[in-house]
């Protein structure tokens, strides 16, 4: 080998050596948009961000942001379908298939909220940070319990008894194989979570976050569903008596019109921020006509319009609907930047819960008093209680009809008719298997422990 050739070879080997040497850390690239799940809930600040993260799931479009609510109101008898995606129509005509897109997005969204709550419930108690006072700690854990209670309650209403998961999913390994619990067990989980929430949450006033009062309100609804009338009426009373915090404001539209948020009517509503426009707009689009920038997936049907626009029945609740040149549309969700709150618990519901509880207990006069409070606020005349002619049945029917209009575009009507066993009479659904929605087909296929509801 010539000397020059040896020189060349040495130079090349040096280059190769240098390049191979620089490889050591080369195959580690850290993300910038996300952080590792090994360091998540460790101090006061991260405990608080993680709890806001649970509300984010609660307010997401799959849950209270739109889809969950749509199951509640579309399955009733107030709306007709004008959009393109047949999934929505399936609720209106009570022929829901297990591959329905809403059914699966709601399932996913609710369990997402549950998993986030589980993370908080598991990790926050272990934090030792002086900034995390015991009051704050209790509040945060209590909020997580409350949202988990609400989530399981909503799952039970839509799907029946479900898989009860109370531990966070932190890795693929700890995805547990769980069978569905019975409806009773699911309700027991709701009850136990609500009790924890009631104990831990502060007795303050906050209409967009859970407090002790929020837990009471959900308890009242819970006992209405479990038909424990005593408890339902006593929890409702606790809130109704707070007349300063929770007055029935008149006229009816005072709690939603003119861009109001967190009106005194609200016990719990979910708040949307105009600075986050991208996540907000889904709900109002389904309601608003093209002229207002919506896509009008559904509009009030003819029967409902006759009721709501009848001054003797709808009263000033007719502000729920509005009309373009050609069509009527629902106007509860109307804000162009998509910041309409999601109304979860209102004081009006507590009146009607107590009315129903009283009626079921035979205290018809008291029932009418609460019912008339609602009618009065809607600008309607009171229905006179006559000991001679008023029966429990007529009272319950009056409450049922009042609820139909009072909560026309909130997720109540379907759950009410199912809970009271009146769906067959009112909606003509004779097949009681249809009272529960199908478990999403995709979940059945993925999870061998998950059984489909009968009839699907």
């Amino acid at each position, binding site marked *: 080998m010539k000397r020059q050739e040896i020189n060349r070879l040495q130079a090349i080997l040096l280059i190769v050596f*240098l390049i191979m040497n*620089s490889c050591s850390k080369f195959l580690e690239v850290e993300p910038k948009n996300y952080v590792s799940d090994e360091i998540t809930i460790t101090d006061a600040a991260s405990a608080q961000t993680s709890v806001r*993260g649970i*509300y984010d799931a609660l307010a997401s479009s799959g849950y209270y942001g739109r889809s969950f609510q749509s199951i509640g109101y579309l399955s009733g008898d107030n709306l007709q379908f004008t959009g*393109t995606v047949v999934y929505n129509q399936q609720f209106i005509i009570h022929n829901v298939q*297990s591959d329905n897109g809403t059914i699966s997005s709601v399932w996913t969204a609710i369990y*997402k909220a549950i998993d986030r709550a589980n993370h908080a419930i598991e990790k926050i108690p272990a934090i030792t940070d002086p900034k995390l006072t015991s009051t704050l700690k209790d509040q945060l854990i209590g909020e997580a319990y409350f949202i988990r209670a609400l989530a399981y309650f909503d799952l039970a209403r839509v799907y029946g008894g479900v898989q009860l998961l109370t531990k966070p999913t932190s890795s693929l390994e700890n995805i547990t194989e769980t069978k569905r619990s019975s409806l009773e067990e699911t309700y027991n989980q709701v009850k136990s979570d609500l009790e924890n929430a009631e104990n831990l949450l502060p007795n303050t006033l906050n*209409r967009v976050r859970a407090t002790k009062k929020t837990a009471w309100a959900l308890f009242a609804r819970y006992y209405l569903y479990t038909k424990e009338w005593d408890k339902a009426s006593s929890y409702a009373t606790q809130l109704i008596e707070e007349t300063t915090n929770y007055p029935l404001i008149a006229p009816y539209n005072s709690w939603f019109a003119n861009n109001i948020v967190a009106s005194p009517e609200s016990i719990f509503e979910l708040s949307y921020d105009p600075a986050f426009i991208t996540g907000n707009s889904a709900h109002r689009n389904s309601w608003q006509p093209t002229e207002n*920038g919506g896509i009008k997936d559904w509009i009030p049907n003819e029967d409902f319009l006759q009721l709501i626009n009848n001054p003797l029945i709808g009263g000033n609740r007719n502000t729920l609907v509005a009309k373009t040149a050609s069509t009527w549309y629902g106007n509860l969700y109307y804000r162009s930047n998509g910041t309409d709150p999601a109304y979860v618990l209102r004081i009006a519901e507590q009146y009607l819960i107590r009315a129903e509880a009283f009626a079921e207990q035979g205290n018809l006069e008291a029932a009418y008093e609460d019912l008339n409070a609602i009618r009065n606020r809607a600008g309607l005349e009171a229905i006179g209680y006559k000991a001679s002619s008023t029966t429990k049945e007529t009272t319950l029917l009056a409450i049922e009809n009042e609820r139909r209009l009072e909560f026309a575009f909130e997720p109540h009507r379907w759950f009410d008719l199912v809970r009271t066993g009146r769906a067959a009479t009112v909606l003509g659904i004779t097949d009681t298997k249809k009272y529960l929605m199908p478990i999403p087909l*995709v979940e059945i296929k993925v999870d061998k422990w998950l059984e489909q509801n009968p009839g699907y």
Partner: protein
Amino acid sequence: MRYSLKTIVLLLMISPVYSLAQETTPRVNSNLHGKVLDSLSHEPLPGATVQIEGVTHSVKTDAEGNYNFVTGQKLPYTLIISYVGYKTKKVIAKVSPLNMLLTADANQLEDVVVVGYGTQTKKDLVGSVSKIEADEINRIPVASFDAQIQGKSTGIQVNNNSGVPGDGINVRVRGTTSILADNNPLYIVDGVFINNSSLQTVHTGGRTTSPIADINPTDIISMEVLKDASATSIYGARGANGVVIITTKRGNYNSAPKINLNVSAGQGKLSKYHFWELSDGPTNAEAVNQNYINTRLDKGIAYDVAYASRPFRPKIEGGRGNPAEQETYDRVGRVFRNAKLNDYDLSLQGGSESTKYFISGAYTSQESILKVADFERESLKLNLDQKINNHINIGVSNTFSRTGRSQVGAGNGSQGNILSSAALVQGTYNPIYNPDGTPSLSGNRDNVDVMIEDTDIKAVSTRYIANLFAEIEILKDLKFKTSWSLDYNLYDEKGYWSDRMLQGQNGGDAISSISQATTWINEQTLFYRKKIKGHTFGILFGNTLQGNTRKNTTAEGSGFPNNSYRSISDASIKSNSESWTGSNLASFFSRIDYNFQSRYFIEASIRADGSSRFGSKNKWGYFPSIGGSWRLKEESILKDVSAINELKLRASYGLTGNQNGIVDYASSGLWTGGAPYANSAGGGYSAGTAPYQLGNPYLQWEKTSQVNVGLDIGLFNKITIDANIYKKYTTDALLSAPLPSSSGHSSYVANAGELSNKGFEFGIDATIVKSNLFSWNTNFNISRNINKVEKLIVPITYYSRDWIRLEEGYPVNSFWVYNQLYVDPQTGNAVYEDVNSDGKITADDRKIIGTALPDYFGGFTNKLSYKGVDLSFLFTYQIGNKMLNLNRFLSMHGGTRADRSLYKEDENYWKKPGDITDIPRFTSQGNNWTLETVNRFIEDASFLRLKNLTVGYGLSKDLAKKFKVQDLRIYITGTNLWLYSKYKGPDPESNTDAEQMVQGIDFGTPPQPKTFQLGINVTL
């Protein structure tokens, strides 16, 4: 990284040392000169090699075909003359000057083919490699070279997706091997692994733009498609979907400057073949009435009551007028136009003894026939090579381009969509303007004229692709090469939706999105080749380091003062976001090849790839291959059979991998900071955190094994046949595996599937006539690929309504539908197949019917020339692929939707008892309506298309001289001139979505235009 700069400096420092090496002046014994000419045309052959046998002394001919020897050898001696595409010839030189004639080699056995990290002659190839000459196809006006190769080679399926120039297309080399990871081949331009995933972020209906369109096709000289494992394994982790190596033009040493100018202009037109024909207003209105009445009957409402309130009833009764009184308003015709096409291309190439260069500048503008969309590209190319001395060469390749697009929404999305929602689905009885003259927004959809006038979406892509290399001959036969590459792309999008459009109803809506993708690559190879008697032996070592980053900053705004203010600074509501992601790849590779007397060939390679995307346990993957070939022609029994000039058997087996296309951090468990919520009523949001994805530390390389057996035959020096059979099997397929959502997560990235592709390829090329006067070459190719999902934990569905489903035992891109058997003539109700025989029709009765993948595909090319006139045409075809006609589905036919258009072909819907039809009674109740995902909309989209027809006339040499030019050719070229397909839409290649698992859906997809271009090409 720290060393990269140092390394460059080091290289630069050592370079001058070599230039000092000196040669001693030899003693002159003879002086020989002459010309090398084509045996038929007697045209000079520049760049031919003339070598004296037995010694290493060789020279190359100059631009005029002249060579010159000044040598110590005494005459006579034997010369070996070789030239690409010609038969090598031996001549005994006795006197000077000596002119020599070379005969063109029709079979191109000596053709140089570019392979991974090297070149080979065609006869020496072990792997399966197709070479595509760029000049045959680069005038097809589709903006990107990948769209131009359709039908030109076996094993490569190209789907053009849409008629918008510069939109992304699908290219599959021997089938779909991946689910989540990218299925497009690896593109290498002048040694740079270029980015092929779109940077588009603004939604325009589902499709995205093609980054390949940043490259000017006329700068390309050839494309080699590497198909089998023997050819692709050297690219290891990126070779599973085939490799396309693009070589751009370079200059020649010792050649005079050559200027080439090409100008062409033309027009694209809408093809009327199977163009959407909507029913007229009265017929459409009658169908709406039918639906209205039937729906109410099904709800139990009496006929009289239902009839009395039908929408199209006399105006005095409060209706919209009787159906017969309705006008017809055409929207679809408004959105198409004749599109202008323009091309200007100027290049200069040449070289001195030690420098060669290629410089080009080009401008292309192509309008889409769909209004508003257009494409234009300005590009510059500079390729330089410099010999430092006899041992060192350095070179650069530079591509710089700016691509501008006007875009328009077409496809999915009810807002801002010009073709589907603003035109195709709108009832033809709906006026386009209100009585007061304002644009009507009937049926919640954008107004077609407003869409045409107000659409304002612009995207500008600025691209720089560069490669710098140095080749050093360390020892004789031992070469070292180092190369440094950069692919930088800045993609700047700006969209504004005016307050007259649905998306802009809140005072206008604007987005500005800026993306950057950067790839840098450093590569070293060391190559040794030695020939000892009949034994040829080669060995290659190399390494590659590659870094990729991608960054995006987006600002959005709405609530503008008026449509004159379009800057987001003027918006009253604003939001913004930022993202960054990066990955690194390190590789080491080696290849050994050996052949005995050009008769037996064996080749083995291995590549090790490490990726930052995978968990610590599985970062590295190893991809070996082995291949061999046997040239039977060289055996004594065939050696003298003149009818057979080539017979070669090839076989290979190897492993390749894939990780392209999966997200960079798929293996890590992550939390997001993007889950904000309020602390108190009326307060703004504060930050919130939440789980984002579960980690999968076991995530690893997807692997595809491939076995290939091939046969190359050459007959009569005129016909070549290339046949292959292959089987690919993918294991550990990367996919987004579903999880039980009760875990709080719906999916994670896993190695959880297996796929197979098997098939054959057959190509025949025949030069039927070749003389000075007339020549005719024909080429036919056909490929068959059978794709199958072999293993999948659970079926995975795609697209809205789960139209597409991935399921074990079926091909990818399969359609999942209810199977309608017939329509009951008495009731008009559709009768469906009860697949699971449980007596009811539920989602469990959906089944897979057909796939968007073709059974067979290929092309048929003919090139004829007579004197100065040349004619060529190319047919492309696909057989057996299905298409979901979503346009039809979204009209009244699909679900008897209110206020929608009706297609003329669908006017035979069921109307009264006794009607025999496959379109059920229109109603919005019951199964006819609810079970909407039906096989009725899955259509056969097999096709045969006259893709290209070109007629040209070139001046004879004498005439050209009169005009003082070297060459002058004028030509007319047409594309998509003829089509045959059963598909009931204008384009059987339509594709509405960029997601690779969502293929074969036609949803407001603009068809490919018929184009005509007139061009002139001058060489000075």
